[in-house]
Every structure is written in structure tokens, then in C-alpha cells.
């Protein structure tokens, strides 16, 4: 999933940033002017100084008038885009409008730059205003070609930079999400408490310690591999949850009871790996851990019409009791995965569980692929 990124086209970012880029473009145009002046002298052997003055004046003024046209045109072009969106912040009007800005900007920029150069050099320069229309057309074409080339160069540079920034942002966000996911699954408190229990068990009950270690290994393997495999059978999903809850049972003792209900007919149905894990963790964290007496966690699968219905319930504090202190990261993550894989055909609902025992109930509905 590609998150929307703040930079897609030219000249974005906060105002100081924009001003800096404006100045950089100005300096570059100046550089182009110098280069053209040197080129003319090299090619025709005409004196360097007048060439330099003329080409620098024309290049900078052309750039300035083109930019002056481009920015309002872009604003007009993007006037209907929502404010704050990348399109609205873009200063690229698209090629058709840009060509108009180029032609008009070049004509004005050339004329003014030409006159300015004449003033500086103290002589009359040939231009649109003097001489024949043929001469004027040649001058226009002559200055449009470098103008277009330079515009194209600016455009592609900024587009490439924006694309690179977008890719980097997307990569960073994906990595951050992955890390957060892993961190939520391998919560340090859970891990260290489990290891603390394991250390005690090694001394007092080596056989149980070994069983606990096997469960921890299976849980770690599933967690670390979970993001890579696209699907696994429901049977495997239930087995991983059983491993996790067995680990928790060593820690919580009689405060945690579990019940699994997986009809054999549904055991081979494919599901995204560890889809239910955050829901079971929520049962522990928000349902049973705050309850002094603990409670029971039930995980069940059922088929209702063409849907696979997965239910995770606890008999703990209930939604009202768990309202404070949650980040909802687990729920958001499950919803995101469902939406990415099944679109609107899957759902997750969190409700208070029915019955006298109270607690919370999470219900996931998935389409069954091949009925």
C-alpha cells in the first residue's frame, strides 16, 4: 500500500524552502547565460564582454518572466484541488500552459533583457523592436530553443528529486510500520516476563521448561515469519494462538483459562498469518490483566453462509473498563490487513460480549474463497 506522499511535482515545501529554490533557479539561469555567452564567442569569434552581458541579461530575465507566468498559471490550473494536497501545492501547470508561459515569457524576457544589455553596453542592440520581422522570428526561435531546453531540464530535475523523496518517504513509512508491528508483537514486557518465568522453570521443572521453550520458539518463528507468508491454514493460526496463550498461562497461572473451537471442516481454510494475534493480545492486556480474578479467552471459527466467522472473546473487564490507555494499534492493524486483502467484503467488529460473564468480543468476517 502506497501512502500518499507530500511531494510529487515541482517546487514544493515550506516558504523558506521555496524561496531558496527560487534563488537557486535564478543562479542557474545566470550560469546558463554565462555559458551561452562563452559559446557564442567560441563559435563566432565575436568579443566576449558584450556577448556575456547580453546573454546573461536575456537568460536571467527570460527565466524570471517565465517563472512569473508559470506560478500563477499553476495556481489557476490547480485551483479546484483541495488545499494542502500535493497538486494544490504544485507549481507545475502542465505542458500546454507551460508552452504559453514559455513563449510569452521568452518574448518579454528577451526584449527587456536585450534593452538592459544595450543600456549597460551603451549601444543599440538588434531585437524584436528593431529590424525586420524575419530577424525577429529568428531571434525568437533562437531564444526559445535554449529556453525550452532549460525549462525541460529544470522540470525533470525537480520531478526526479520529488519522486526520489516520495520513494524515500514511502520506504521509511513502510519500515516504521514494520518495526511498530514487530514491536507490538514482541512486546518487551511480554518477552522479558516470559524469559523470567522460563529461567525459574529450568530450576524447578525442566520438562515444563522445555515445553515452554518450544512454545516460545514456535511463537517467535511465527511472529518473525508472519509478515512474509501471505496465507496459512486456519489450523496453523489456532496452533500459534495456542502457543502464545500457553506462554501466557505459565505466567498468569489459574488467572487465564482458554478454549478453542475449530470445526475440522474449516481447519484448512487459508487466513492471513497471525491475523487474530493482536485481538488475543488485547484480551490479555485490556481484558484479563486488569481483572484481579483473571478470566477465560475463547477463540472460535464458524461458517455462516459464505463467510468464515472468527470470534475472539474474553470474560475480562469489557470495553468500558478497557477504554483508557489503549492506542488501538492492534485493531487498526487488523482492519488495515483485512481491507488490503479483502476490501469491503471483510469486517472486524468489537462489542461487549453477551451474557453474565461480561468481557469483550471481537468478530471477524471473511469471505470464503471457494464455497
Amino acid at each position, binding site marked *: 500500500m502506497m501512502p500518499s506522499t507530500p511531494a510529487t511535482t515541482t517546487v514544493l515545501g515550506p516558504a523558506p524552502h521555496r524561496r531558496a529554490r527560487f534563488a537557486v533557479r535564478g543562479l542557474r539561469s545566470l550560469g546558463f547565460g554565462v555559458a551561452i555567452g562563452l559559446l557564442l564567442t567560441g563559435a563566432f569569434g565575436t568579443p566576449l564582454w558584450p556577448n556575456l552581458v547580453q546573454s546573461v541579461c536575456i537568460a536571467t530575465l527570460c527565466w524570471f518572466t517565465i517563472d512569473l507566468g508559470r506560478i500563477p498559471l499553476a495556481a489557476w490550473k490547480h485551483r479546484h484541488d483541495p488545499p494542502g494536497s500535493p497538486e494544490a501545492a504544485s507549481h507545475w501547470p502542465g505542458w500546454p500552459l507551460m508552452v504559453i508561459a514559455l513563449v510569452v515569457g521568452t518574448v518579454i524576457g528577451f526584449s527587456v533583457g536585450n534593452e538592459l544589455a544595450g543600456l549597460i553596453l551603451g549601444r543599440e542592440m538588434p531585437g524584436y523592436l528593431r529590424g525586420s520581422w524575419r530577424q525577429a522570428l529568428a531571434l525568437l526561435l533562437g531564444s526559445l530553443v535554449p529556453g525550452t531546453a532549460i525549462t525541460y531540464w529544470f522540470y525533470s530535475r525537480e520531478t526526479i528529486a520529488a519522486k526520489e523523496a516520495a520513494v524515500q518517504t514511502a520506504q521509511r513509512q513502510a519500515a516504521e510500520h514494520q518495526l511498530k508491528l514487530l514491536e507490538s508483537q514482541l512486546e518487551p514486557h511480554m518477552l*522479558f516476563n516470559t524469559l523470567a518465568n522460563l529461567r525459574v522453570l529450568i530450576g524447578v521443572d525442566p520438562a515444563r521448561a522445555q515445553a515452554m521453550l518450544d512454545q516460545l520458539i514456535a511463537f517467535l518463528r511465527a511472529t518473525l515469519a508472519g509478515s512474509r507468508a501471505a496465507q496459512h491454514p486456519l489450523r496453523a493460526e489456532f496452533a500459534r494462538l495456542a502457543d502464545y496463550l500457553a506462554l501466557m498461562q505459565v505466567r498468569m497461572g489459574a488467572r487465564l483459562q482458554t478454549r478453542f473451537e475449530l470445526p475440522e471442516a474449516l481447519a484448512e481454510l487459508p487466513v492471513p498469518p497471525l491475523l487474530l494475534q493482536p485481538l488475543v493480545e488485547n484480551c490479555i492486556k485490556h481484558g484479563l*490483566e486488569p481483572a*484481579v480474578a483473571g478470566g477465560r479467552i475463547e477463540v472460535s471459527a464458524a461458517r455462516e453462509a459464505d463467510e468464515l466467522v472468527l470470534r475472539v472473546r474474553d470474560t475480562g473487564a469489557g470495553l468500558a473498563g478497557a477504554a483508557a490507555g489503549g492506542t488501538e494499534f492492534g485493531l487498526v492493524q487488523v482492519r488495515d490487513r483485512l481491507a488490503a486483502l479483502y476490501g469491503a467484503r471483510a469486517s472486524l467488529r468489537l462489542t461487549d460480549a453477551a451474557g453474565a460473564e461480561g468481557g469483550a468480543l471481537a468478530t471477524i468476517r471473511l469471505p470464503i474463497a471457494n464455497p
Partner: protein
Amino acid sequence: MNATALIAEDEPLLAANLQAELARLWPELTIVANVGHGAAAVERALALRPELLFLDIRMPGMTGLEAAQALAEDWPDDAALPLIVFVTAYDQYALQAFERAAFDYVLKPVQPARLAQTCARVQAALQARAAASLQAPAALDATLAQLRQLLAAPGLAATRTAPTLLSVIQASVGAAIHMVPIDEVLYFEAADKYVRVITAAREYLIRTSLRELLPQLDAQRFWQIHRGTVVRADAIATAVRDESGKVHLSLRGHADKLVASRLYAHLFKAM
């Protein structure tokens, strides 16, 4: 040296292990109770008056820190407050807070060498206390200051600043919802899972815990004076300190008298 201790730890295996390690390192230490949650720790500690407490931070119902606060507030004046050692598996906020407040703690899994150090420190402190006969006021003040620092530590206590402050309290009375402007509230008092809201005119009951309510109140205007009481500062008329360190408050326009615990007594000083 002989001493008595209470262990509060919700994970049975870890509790048994801590007890076994203590038996090895400090055979003369008697564990008078081994409890699984914070409320039981407070109740058993008040009944049995051990000299030392091992409190797990994360426990169901009441955290180790909340238990320590309750004990500091309810501990009788004629006995010395027990020494407290916090126990935690992994909690970066807690560890930072303990370091800063110079509070003793042990990490789970318990390392015998680290626990031996803690035992030595506790023994030294108990001996110093015995030499000073009962509890020197300075030592109690130091402990209270440490606890205050822990209670104010970010991420450790439940008090986080909420994004928005409440301006009205919505209290249901029968079928009606009464909108009580926050400025009319004299004080809030925790009552089990409810909070009593007291105004000059009447009293309401809201279905929330003080722990959830507290971050939504302006801390400048509403002062916590006890783990179960939050009072509007400008509703307080007088504050009188007694010899045990508690502060008795009278209110403007209301006959109720409130008591600020030793943990919050430092708020009441002349300018």
C-alpha cells in the same frame, strides 16, 4: 538480621522464585505474605506491618506504585513506613524513574548478585532505622519525596495530560443528564468505580474512575490532595497541618472538611 517482608507479584512462578532466592540470600528474613495484586498488598501490609515490601509494578487492579501511594497515605503514625523495593520485568519509564528518584528496584528475572546488593542495602537501612529508634522524620520525608517524584514521572503513573480539558461534568440523575460547569465543582472524591462530584448545591455520582478523570482536569486549578481526592484550589479556605503531617482543609461555602495526605501536604505552604 531478622526482618519481615511482603511480596506482591501477580505471576506465581516469579513470586515463588523471589521467595526462594530471598530464603537463600537472607535466611533470617520472614516472608509474612505473598500476594497477587496491589489491593491485597495494601490490605495485608496494613494488617501485618512488615518492614520490607517487594512490589511488582504491573499488577492487576492496582499497580505497585499505586499500592505504595496508598500505603504511604494510610500507614499508621505509630509505625515506621516499610522500605519498598520495586520489581519490574522491563519498563524503560519505570527504570528511568527509579534511577532518578534513587528508589531501589530489582529486575526480573531476579539476578542473585543484584538481589544480594539490594538485601545488603535494605539491611543497612533497617539497622540505621533501629539505631535512630522508630522513624526519624527526615527519613520519612525523604521517602515521601521519592514517592512524589515517582508519581510525577512521565509514563509511570496513570496521569497523562489529556488532549482537551473538561469544561462541564455530565452527570446522570435519574433519566436526566445534569450539565455541571467545572467551575461549580468544589471537589471530586473517588468512590470505588465511581467519582462523587461535590458542588455547593448538591452532589453527583459519575461513572468514571478518578484515574481517568484526572488528566482531563486543569492541574493548576484542581489539586490532587489524596489518591482519592481532587479539590478546586480556590475553593479551599484554610489549611491546617497536624503533627502527623496531614493537612486539614476547610472549604468556602461548604461544611465538608477534607484531608490532604502526607504525600500532598507539601502543596500547602505560606507564600
